[in-house]
């Protein structure tokens, strides 16, 4: 019986940590979804945006001695300026191009941002400490021997707040309605006087801020370093699973991938030699796609000749 309890608790611990890890994936995936919805751009630079935001944040704190809250505001301003520049220099010129061209341009953007971040702030691994709690949640650990990382709980809380704020922003504000109109139909939106450019700047700014949140969370966990930009690759299966156009999808997808990955690592990993987290999420996504080609919550793909 004890053994069974122990097993059950272990399983629960794995699931909880998987859920929390999934939240981290969702944070990156939300940024993707925002941009894809509004401009149809599959933004591969989202991971690098997170890296860039993290680097800027640390750079502002270290080089100028700013307190965290001021540095965060500074970084948000930088991300908004960046969004403006991206629209001005890249997107504006690529309107109406094919998806793959836009996708490639974000790959180019990823290169630029990566080099820029390194030149501006140095390429060494940086410790990000803005006063977020870390370590195990004490009462759970002491009383039940149950390990839950405080940082991940904070991430979950912040992600929830973020989603609620985004939902309110999208559903209740004027800009949000304009955003949804653009997402629905570019031309119709233009014809009723919505400025596509302004919308794109707003969307890229918002996803820049989401990237900042993701960068802060991942950075607090494992330091700000180049590998941060690779979380984009982690977020892709999440997107696939949830559908490219759905924010709830990004969250649910993140949770499924997070839990699935952790479970697979523990229960399947040992039999095949471990290190399966690199591809397991993709396999999961692929299996899902076989049944629902548009993802869990994605818009139904309707094709006409």
């Amino acid at each position, binding site marked *: 019986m004890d053994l069974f309890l122990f097993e059950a608790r272990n399983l629960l611990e794995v699931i909880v940590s998987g859920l929390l890890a999934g939240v981290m994936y969702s944070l990156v995936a939300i940024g993707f979804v925002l941009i894809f919805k509004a401009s149809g751009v599959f933004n591969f630079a989202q991971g690098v945006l997170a890296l860039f935001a993290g680097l800027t944040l640390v750079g502002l704190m270290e080089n100028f001695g700013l307190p965290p809250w001021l540095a965060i505001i500074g970084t948000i301003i930088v991300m908004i300026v960046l969004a403006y520049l991206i629209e001005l220099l890249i997107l504006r010129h690529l309107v109406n191009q094919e998806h793959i061209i836009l996708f490639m341009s974000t790959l*180019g953007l990823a290169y630029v941002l990566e080099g820029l971040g390194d030149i501006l702030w140095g390429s060494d691994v940086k410790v990000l400490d803005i006063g977020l709690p870390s370590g195990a949640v004490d009462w759970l650990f002491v009383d039940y021997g149950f390990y839950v990382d405080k940082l991940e709980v904070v991430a979950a809380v912040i992600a929830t707040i973020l989603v609620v704020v985004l939902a309110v922003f999208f559903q209740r504000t004027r800009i949000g309605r304009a955003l949804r109109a653009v997402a629905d139909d570019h031309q119709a939106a233009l014809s009723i006087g919505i400025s596509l450019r302004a919308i794109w700047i707003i969307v890229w700014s918002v996803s820049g801020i989401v990237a900042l949140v993701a960068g802060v969370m991942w950075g607090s966990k494992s330091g700000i370093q180049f590998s941060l930009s690779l979380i984009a690759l982690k977020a892709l299966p999440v997107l696939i699973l949830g559908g490219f156009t759905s924010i709830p999808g990004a969250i649910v997808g993140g949770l499924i991938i997070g839990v699935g990955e952790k479970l697979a690592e523990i229960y399947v990993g040992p039999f095949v030699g471990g290190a399966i987290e690199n591809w397991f999420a993709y396999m999961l996504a692929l299996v899902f796609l076989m049944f629902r080609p548009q993802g869990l919550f994605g818009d139904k793909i309707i094709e006409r000749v």
Partner: protein
Amino acid sequence: MFYREVGQFKTSYQSDQAIFTIAQDRWFLLVILAIAFGVVPFFINDYFANAILLPFLVYAMAAIGLNILTGYCGQLSLGTGAFLAVGAYASYKLMTAFPEVSIIIHFLLAGAITACVGVLFGLPSLRIKGFYLAVATLFAQFFIIWLFYKVPWFFNYNATGQISVPPREVFGVLITGPKASPAAAYLFTLTFVVVGALLAKNMVRSKTGRSWMAIRDMDIAAEIIGINPLKTKLIAFAVSCFYCGVAGALMFAVWLGAAEPGEAFSIDQSFLVLFMIIIGGLGSILGSFLGAAFMTLMPILLKQGMVDGMGFAVGTAKHVEFIVMGCLIIFFLIVEPHGLARLWQIVKEKLRLWPFPH
């Protein structure tokens, strides 16, 4: 003035269907081939071969492969790195298992094996499209690389986990291994690439190629006019992966000499080859060559210019190189989304009239 087709009449069906209908194009190509086969081998040295010519040829081969899949058949793939790896490991296993067989056969077989693997990973393309498919091919990328790390059979149970090429001869000339002469390695690779390109060029003009393009342009419409999407897509995957496999085998055996899955065949390679075909021109065999040349030469020129020319530190130069490369990619996409091949076409159009205004 020099590039006019006036007076060149096509008198037979055959000449009407030639790859190069204009005599100047034929001559131009023949001159280039003559230089590539007859002149370059005499002036080649180790640096030239290993830093410029071999990478260019190998990547051109891979780019042709990806271009068939993405440019002609419209199936976006991010698994090129893995398919290169399959070709490399297949050739390694074949070369070590059957040392007495010619490596030409090994390389072709390696291509065939990669084609089979490609078809396997191409199966989801029947149901999944666009970026969703790209992510499905990412699964191939990560899974295959993982497999080559984890299963010792692939690298013959050696301690390092690396594969290194055994020395092999073709017609009595050493081609692979560290002692091979750069000229031999170059000529060997060049022959493969030229034959491959010629076959590819003809294939995309054939019924198969036309059905690829129909699928690319609109697969439902293609299906309605009687093109079997299953067959067409899978053939595209097979042919594309055959080229990638041969490119991988050449890359490992002739160019690098030794390889490790994580470095030589990482996802960066997938993106690199994708860059090549986009910058070179989607749906163009010439574009594959131009793109490969561009992406091989540009980092070298940038590095030389910055480190030797302007005295940058190597680390800074690397970062600047990233930025410049990113900017160039964006610049090219904005200025000419159809790639260098299209620019070449425009130049030719202009040349027909030059120096007259009309």
